[in-house]
């Protein structure tokens, strides 16, 4: 069933992003087009049980600059990131306090771990010092939906509040979930996206899983998506939320419309990464689902923002999925992979990709894949390069291919 045949249409009216390259989507896009990478040795982990590791840290973020009035203590890092991005998105889309109070605005947050640090510290405190030393206020933040709930409290958002966890596809899956709620008329305005903190615990876990660029033998300094020498990814930290609204009510209030979400799709690889052909198939299912809902053919898409992050198997499955569906025409589809400069920000990644796509649509320029020198010969030929390029994008695609088998795709179209 095409989404356009039933229900309501969904538009994006604003976005907020907290990233290692700043909080302004347009300047973020400029930085990416200039090839300014946030990748550097991780400094803020404060632990010596890890080898030197590269990552994209949010070193500059001060919650108080965004969440100016009120008690910040109940909000942990993940909640602060989410609430700050939400504030930016509300402001950008013209939802002031008065309008918020008169409507039911909701939040749909994608996150892989939720508050990883809070959960682990709460538990370790109770084990080491005894349960009576565990802090009740921190317990509230150990539930995976805590950041979305805290964000609702901070901004007074009484609409549907939900969290979606789909590993590294969480952010894009959350946006698809929110779009469906609006289509069905269950919500009029939803902030949707993702947030993920970068903390010692996640770095430690991914390191021991052998998934980081420095976890294995090889070139630790090259978490370069799509490159033949890639050897794993680098973690990043970010939050990105977009304001999704029912098109009719957005138009009625005279909102600026950045794009329409015309379709999304998903796929699942039963082998969870063990069988490359099933991994490719999951990507194809996600792409085909999104195209079908949008009523588009592959040739109608002007550019794609990939989730490729330097992961050996994940990048290959994603590239092959695109190659398979574009069937020989993939070399004509401009693609980019912003995780080359922002790292793998897990639950935030897919939402951040959509922010970058919308900026590429506005600016007519697609950032390059930083550091890309030698496209993996195992991959089909792709239209990717290290340098940014001018591309007119009216219909853009975001792909999110997870570590363990889940794939999502979403299509955003400029309104003519």
């Amino acid at each position, binding site marked *: 069933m095409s989404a356009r045949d039933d229900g309501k249409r969904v538009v994006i009216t604003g976005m907020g992003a907290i990233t290692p390259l700043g909080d302004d989507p347009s300047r973020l896009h400029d930085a990416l087009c200039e090839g300014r990478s946030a990748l550097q040795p991780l400094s803020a982990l404060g632990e010596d049980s890890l080898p030197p590791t590269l990552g994209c840290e949010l070193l500059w973020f001060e919650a108080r600059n965004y969440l100016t009035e009120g008690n910040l203590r109940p909000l942990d890092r993940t909640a602060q990131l989410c609430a700050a991005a939400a504030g930016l998105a509300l402001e950008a889309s013209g939802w002031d306090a008065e309008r918020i109070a008169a409507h039911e605005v909701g939040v749909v947050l994608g996150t892989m771990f939720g508050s990883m640090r809070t959960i682990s510290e709460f538990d370790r405190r109770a084990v080491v010092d005894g349960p009576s030393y565990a802090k009740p206020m921190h317990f509230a933040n150990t539930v995976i939906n805590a950041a979305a*709930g805290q964000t609702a409290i901070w901004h007074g958002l009484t609409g549907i509040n939900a969290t979606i966890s789909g590993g590294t596809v969480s952010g894009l899956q959350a946006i698809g979930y929110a779009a469906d709620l609006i289509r069905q008329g269950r919500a009029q305005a939803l902030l949707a996206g993702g947030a993920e903190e970068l903390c010692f615990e996640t770095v430690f876990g991914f390191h021991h899983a052998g998934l980081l660029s420095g976890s294995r033998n090889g070139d630790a300094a090259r978490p370069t998506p799509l490159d033949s020498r890639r050897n794993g990814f680098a973690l990043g930290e970010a939050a990105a939320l977009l304001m999704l609204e029912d098109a009719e009510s957005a138009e009625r209030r005279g909102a600026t419309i950045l794009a329409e979400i015309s379709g999304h799709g998903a796929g699942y690889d039963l082998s969870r990464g063990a069988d490359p052909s099933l991994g490719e198939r999951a990507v194809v299912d996600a792409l085909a689902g999104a195209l079908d809902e949008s009523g588009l053919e592959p040739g109608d898409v002007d550019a794609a923002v990939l989730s490729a992050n330097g992961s050996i198997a994940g990048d290959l499955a994603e590239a092959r999925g695109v190659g398979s569906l574009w069937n020989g025409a993939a070399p004509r589809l401009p693609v980019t992979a912003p995780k080359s400069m922002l790292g793998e920000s897990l639950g935030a990644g897919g939402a951040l990709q959509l922010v970058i796509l919308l900026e590429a649509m506005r600016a007519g320029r697609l950032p390059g894949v930083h550091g890309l020198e030698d496209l993996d010969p195992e991959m089909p030929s792709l239209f990717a390069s290290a340098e940014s390029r001018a591309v007119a994008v009216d219909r853009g695609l975001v792909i999110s291919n997870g570590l363990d088998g889940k794939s999502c795709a979403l299509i955003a179209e400029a309104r003519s």
Partner: protein
Amino acid sequence: MPPRVVVTGIGLVTPLGCGRERVWSRLLAGECGTSRVESFDPEGYGVDQGGEVRDFDPARYFRTLDPTSVGRSTQLAIAATRQALDDAVLDLSLLDPRRVGVIMGTTSGEAREVEAFDDHLIDERSAPAPTEFVRRYPCNVIPELVATELGVTGPNLMVPAACAAGTYAIANALDGLRAGRADVMVAGGADCFSRITYAGFARLGAVAPMRCQPFDRERKGMIPAEGSGVLVLETFDSARRRGAPIYAEVAGYGLACDAHHMTAAHPQADGAVRAMSAALDESGLGADRIGYISAHGTGTPTNDRIEAMAVRRIFNGRSRTVPISSIKSMIGHTMGAASAIEAAVCCLAIAENRVPPTAHFEQPDPECDLDCVPNEAREVEVGAAMNNSYAFGGYNASMVFRRAES
């Protein structure tokens, strides 16, 4: 008109045992499944009662995956899912695997995995290096591993909405079926018993010392528990075509956020009222048509008082006569599984015209002036039932089920 969606299978894994028939009969008998915690030493927590699933053999339910390769919450979810599919007499091999979806909810996901990870961080000799941590812990593994176990690649979603997660999952399955995204949806919730959850509720002073007594004047709190509840949902036409048993129809739901406090309900129950009201609106039923309410009913002083206030605001004069009970009095609070298990209870109440009691009820509380079906199950013409669930984050979720008339 979107297709009608019905429940055709029920799977239950609870502190009162496994399987729809066993759990339902023990609930109707008013039995209690909570007791002293055994999965860790409760010394030092100040309380020691919990609802654990004992004598649980996951291997009975696994046909594809190795049960030891997955965490306990996933084990509970797969057990409930296999039961639900058997109960629905559904042969997956006859279906297109891309048209079968799995939607799950949880509060803490695979909490035991992060506990083992923490043990390693505390003392690396006490627990192995966490080489599988990032693959086994993130809560998205629960619906994904259920899908791998079943061999299905349709819509797959984890919606961790804390103690309302089961209702969120069933709601998404309803919407997905109506939108034609799948032919069959498996939906529910799962949470394993966790020392993190136990410590947290103990520190909030929310855990009852001996037993859970919802709506009783002397109620002293909830009892943390574990479990899984899973429903099989499909369209009414599909169920009729294959001659499947139909428990009930999912008539509508409502979700609302208090935006007031992370752990305390809104003082006037505004969010709860909005959720109930939206669920009734969508179902097209007036409050007078609801024959049973499955309460969130945790047994904490505040929850039950606020929930009673919300019921009064929606049901007006009928609030004292509509039967409302809390099975948490018998199995404890199974966290993300709770509202899925309670959804199953609503379906069974509609199918059998029997409602389970609120156990351990002794003294009425004037602030909870409801008919909480004290201590004895009751035969009553149900017709339609409402399931209420509330959660950290100010979440309010209500769902209405009704008899599936043809």
